[in-house]
């Protein structure tokens, strides 16, 4: 993937505009009525830079992108893109939104051709570039397939091709990988890096902070203002803290114990899946303190590692300082839950065929009350179809389902009233206010009148929306809608809860709050089936199944899954991660290599023998390995391995 343009002779405007910044924002402001979405944003992005934008939901990211793309007028301030007002620079811009802006009833090729036509791409150039781009993203075999029939990850790759077809100088990406699985979104970023290497300026917002770590500079936006701006190293240093990665027997109790100790050394304690990240001013002292504290509580420690803080550490820490940690309020439970351990859902040989396409193949699941079961898999693997069959929205083609003791008529009202379902697409009515939506769902699920105010209040408080309950739902940022939708799906205290990507597009702090609530429900005896693309969250699950192409290919507890991974995982830091990854993917099997933020993760069967060879290969390309050390598998590593190996078979 050395040269992204098939023809090298194209003289792009960017060579002549090298001295002009790609983007200049001076005191940018935007108000919608009384609401000030952007309050004085100033930033300069240089040509060829990969610039990351991170921030909580409703921080003003989307508004900023819309202004940069020239599709919305700023209220005040100066905006220039490639030295021009955005509207005049539009032909040199590529703009990708969270919502796929593809024509679903046109084919892949037709979508590309249409985008090319819009941007005055000459036929000859289109004929060369279109097949080339499709080949780069692996969509070549699907030229005739309708965009509507592509999986989420493929759609976004196609959207990227559409944005790239006209050879833009600036690429604006507004959370394009939201809801995209870990494998696909890595492929997406590999492409972006290749594009940027060609001199294209990339400005990207993302809810995945490991992706943001791949940016040269990162701006943390909060409340319509830039709170912090700099390279990953700058941001880390600004924190002035070090990170301890603590793996202990029981993460939750360990966190409680450390929190309760009130030791001033523990500046911030954050749970990441199966480990605790503890930010401390001094690593050695901090480690000692952690060991002491946990020893007092007789909590066994598996390992403690010292490392630099991650971007997520910085982000979470900053937002907590801002006081934007959403409040945790326990749910006002009114019913006694089901006895834990009883079977809530079982399926045997569950199948679903759409026409000639087999979406689900022989799925066997068992989920008990009080259990959180994670259904993981790439986009289009069949997770949503399984959920729809389980909650009676879709009849299975064959197979057996038992749900809350019922085997037939799962769509009956009394069965329905015992389940809660939060679908991937927002289930709220955009044209109702938040309060009207919540009242409506209370009515639908038969929440008794006298309990309604309390429950609705709980949702509003949990979402931090008190006093804003009369806002139209349509005007909420995506992440907030998710929170309200979650609230709406649990108000009736279901015994069985289906959550289809509940945290998609939700910022890290709110995601933590989500999971705390989910754990609460499980603790009370609710059976929960959840899907997510944030694998570190999936560590919260008691059991999980990995789906590939309609089949469950691996099942078990998180530690089972991680324990069953072949080989040893090695984490590396190199001088050029992207180039190193590209090279190693050619030399090794591709599933063995993946980029995690500013690190490289490589699965080796025999690190001691193989590492020197890798070092030589990389050295030949002038890439130096700074550090390489064996680390335990995370679920994300496991996911990438499982999915990619299954796809090869």
């Amino acid at each position, binding site marked *: 993937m050395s040269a992204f343009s098939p023809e090298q002779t194209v003289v792009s405007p960017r060579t002549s505009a090298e001295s002009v910044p790609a983007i200049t924002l001076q005191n940018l402001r935007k108000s919608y009525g009384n609401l000030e979405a952007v309050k004085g944003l100033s930033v300069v992005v240089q040509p060829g830079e990969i610039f990351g934008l991170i921030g909580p939901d409703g921080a003003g990211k989307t508004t900023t992108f819309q202004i940069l793309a020239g599709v919305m007028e700023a209220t005040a301030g100066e905006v220039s893109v490639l030295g021009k007002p955005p509207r005049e620079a539009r032909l040199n811009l590529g703009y990708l939104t969270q919502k796929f802006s593809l024509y679903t*009833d046109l084919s892949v090729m037709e979508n590309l051709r249409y985008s090319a036509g819009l941007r005055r791409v000459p036929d000859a150039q289109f004929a060369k570039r279109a097949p080339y781009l499709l080949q780069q993203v692996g969509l070549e075999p699907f030229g005739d397939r309708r965009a509507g029939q592509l999986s989420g990850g493929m759609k976004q790759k196609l959207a990227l091709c559409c944005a790239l077809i006209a050879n833009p100088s600036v690429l604006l990406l507004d959370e394009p990988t939201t809801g995209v699985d870990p494998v696909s979104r890595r492929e997406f970023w590999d492409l972006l890096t290749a594009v940027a290497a060609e001199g294209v300026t990339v400005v990207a917002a993302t809810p995945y902070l490991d992706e943001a770590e791949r940016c040269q500079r990162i701006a943390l936006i909060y409340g319509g203002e830039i709170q912090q701006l700099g390279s990953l190293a700058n941001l880390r240093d600004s924190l002035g803290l070090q990170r301890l990665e603590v793996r202990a027997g029981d993460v939750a109790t360990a966190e409680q114990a450390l929190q309760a100790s009130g030791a001033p050394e523990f500046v911030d304690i954050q749970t990441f899946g199966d480990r605790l990240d503890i930010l401390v001013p001094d690593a050695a002292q901090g480690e000692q303190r952690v060991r002491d504290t946990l020893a007092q509580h007789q909590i066994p420690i598996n390992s403690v590692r010292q490392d630099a803080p991650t971007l997520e550490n910085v982000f979470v820490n900053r937002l907590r300082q801002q006081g934007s940690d959403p409040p945790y309020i326990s749910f006002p439970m009114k019913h006694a839950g089901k006895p834990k351990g009883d079977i809530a859902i079982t399926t045997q040989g569950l199948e679903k065929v759409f026409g000639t396409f087999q979406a689900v193949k022989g799925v066997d699941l068992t989920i008990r009350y009080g259990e959180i079961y994670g259904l993981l898999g790439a986009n289009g693997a069949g997770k949503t179809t399984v959920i729809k069959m389980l909650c009676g929205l879709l009849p299975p083609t064959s197979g057996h389902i038992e749900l809350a003791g019922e085997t037939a008529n799962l769509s009956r009202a009394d069965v329905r009233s015992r389940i809660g379902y939060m679908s991937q697409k927002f289930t709220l009515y955009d044209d109702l206010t938040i309060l009207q939506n919540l009242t409506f769902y209370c009515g639908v699920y038969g929440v008794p009148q006298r309990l309604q105010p309390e429950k609705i209040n709980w949702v509003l408080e949990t979402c931090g929306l008190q006093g804003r309950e009369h806002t139209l739902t349509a005007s909420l940022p995506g992440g907030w809608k998710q929170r309200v939708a979650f609230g709406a799906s649990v108000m009736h205290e279901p015994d069985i809860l289906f959550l289809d990507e509940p945290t998609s597009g939700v910022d890290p702090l709110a995601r933590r709050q989500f999971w705390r609530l989910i754990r609460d429900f499980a603790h009370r005896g609710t059976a929960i089936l959840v899907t997510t693309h944030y694998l570190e969250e999936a560590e919260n699950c008691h059991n999980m199944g990995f789906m590939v192409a309609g089949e469950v290919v691996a099942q078990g507890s998180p530690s089972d899954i991680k324990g069953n991974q072949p080989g040893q995982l090695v984490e590396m830091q190199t001088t050029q991660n992207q180039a190193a990854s590209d090279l190693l993917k050619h030399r090794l099997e591709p599933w063995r290599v993946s980029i995690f933020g500013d690190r490289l993760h490589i699965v080796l069967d025999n690190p001691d023998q193989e590492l020197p060879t890798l070092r030589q290969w990389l050295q030949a390309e002038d890439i130096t390995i700074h550090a390489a050390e064996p680390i335990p598998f995370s679920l994300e590593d496991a996911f990438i391995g499982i999915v990619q190996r299954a796809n090869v078979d």
Partner: protein
Amino acid sequence: MRRIFAQFLKELSQFQRDRLTVALAFLLPLAVLLIYGYAIRLEAKNIPLSIQDFDNSQLSRGYVERIFASQQFVPAPLLDNDPTLAIDRGIAKATLVIPPDFSRTIKDKDSVEVQVLVDGTDVNNARVIQNGIRATTQFFLRSDNLIPDRPRPQVVAEVRLWFNPGREEAFYIVPGIFGVILWVFPSMLAAIATVREKEQGTIVQIYASDLSAAEWLLGKELAYIAIGIGEALITLVVAALLFGIRIQGDPTPLLVGTIVFLAAAVAFGLFVGVRTGNQTGAVQGTAIAGFLTALLLSGFIYRIDNIPFPLSALSNVIPARYYILITRDALVRGTGWAGVGFAPLAIALIGGFFFFAATRILHRMQFSD
């Protein structure tokens, strides 16, 4: 121009992919044609009529025969020799009373009076019956050469439709249906196509390119005119097969008029599309506005002269009004450009206004706050 053409192609391939839209475009108009073509009858048929013939001569019997020959009336029994009893019981809608001196008066070349008792509960029908009997009587008198033909040039043309016993009413209705079908459906399709881009967010891609509002709308305009031409051809062929409609005289006014009319309909659809936010609104806006105006204010069902003042002024800006003039001329009268030359101009003016309004609304090609 190239980009407009690209829009045009994209719009057409999107259209043919969506089976529901294709059905909407081609099957619904046929349904409308059939329903309106067969169901709307301004003329009443098979009205039960009882006869009290006091004359009972050869001439009076011939007259009665002539009346029933028109299919407008069917014989109903006369009860107890009472002309009103059958009407009271609902067996007959009217009774014709022929005076004893019927044949004698006619032979004296004097004017004769027959009495018709009509059930007045259905005012509309009553008028139809009254006119029907009057017309048959005229025809009878003329055809039997009982009164000398008097030249009545202008009146004949207008009156014929009502007063011709063997007449085909489809000739009057079907050209009007064209005005409804070719207005409602193209505008609805265009409005859906426009609003769908908003709903699905694809319009952002357009905003982010430098395509102008006029280019974007023109691409859609052309695509839906093309689809509208398809609809027009199918409707015309089916109407020809079912109702025996033929193009009379010069076909060019119909050709030009239809294209201009389709353009205006599509422009109206685009206008509704850029104004509304969702497909439901777009469909309702175009359907309700289209059916109301094209049916009621176009002279299709109610003569424009009969429409009271504020509405009659409104009817002047209803393109269907002008188009129906064209179709009636092309499919019935056949006088060509002479009678309808101004109509395409009027339609183009109104259509142009809608298109201009649509581009004005979108001209910034940006999100509004």
